[in-house]
């Protein structure tokens, strides 16, 4: 199944792109999607404890199962205002 992935702030700088699209095994969870990028970008993996994920624009736990067409984003600490 294919999901859309977004990176923001310093995560975008680390990964080198703001948006990606990947094929995952059915039943994959957000943590597996993150591991996919963490393996390619060790610096990203180190941010695991200081970021949150969203699925379809709602904050989502790492254990959230994904479905085809989902939009997942990895969000560093926010600094708006």
């Amino acid at each position, binding site marked *: 199944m294919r999901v859309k992935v977004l990176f923001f702030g310093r995560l975008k700088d680390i990964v080198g792109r703001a948006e990606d699209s990947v094929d995952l095994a059915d039943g994959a969870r957000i943590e597996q999607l993150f591991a996919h990028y963490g393996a390619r970008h060790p610096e990203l993996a180190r941010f695991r404890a200081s970021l949150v994920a969203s699925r379809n624009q709602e904050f989502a736990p790492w254990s959230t199962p994904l479905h085809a067409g989902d939009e997942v984003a990895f969000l560093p600490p926010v600094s*708006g205002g």
Partner: protein
Amino acid sequence: MTPPGDDIFRLVVEPIDAAALVRHVRAGEDGAVVTFDGCVRNQSHGRRTLYLDYEAYEPMALAKIRDIAAEMHAKFPIHRVAIVHRLGRLQIGDTSIFIAVSAPHRPAAFDACRFAIDTLKRTVPIWKKEYFEDGAIWADGELPPAPAEAPAAKPAS
């Protein structure tokens, strides 16, 4: 107290027209309008700031701002809310966030306005990159509270 359609939520790149937002939120029944204007400071932790870039996960940021306003109406006897955040490059003194809250009486307007900015800074996916003479950094921020993990997640079916 007001149909949510009377509130204003925007992410903009142009300067924020604060006076127009204040005019929008206030009506004859209101005795108080409290506003918060967050503006770009000329320094950060003692380093001279040149300018800032703000970026947002725009649809989610707008949805989270709407959530904040819904919570404001639920918690405080207020009338209308305007929350506008500017994105892109901002110079020293530019307003990055403007919040206006009207209410019949002032305590609710103060409490709701402060609740809005405090919550926005914790939960709305917007990020600030600070440019200094010797480099740029993403500002330290606050990690939004993520929903709890399922205690024993079952394998996805």
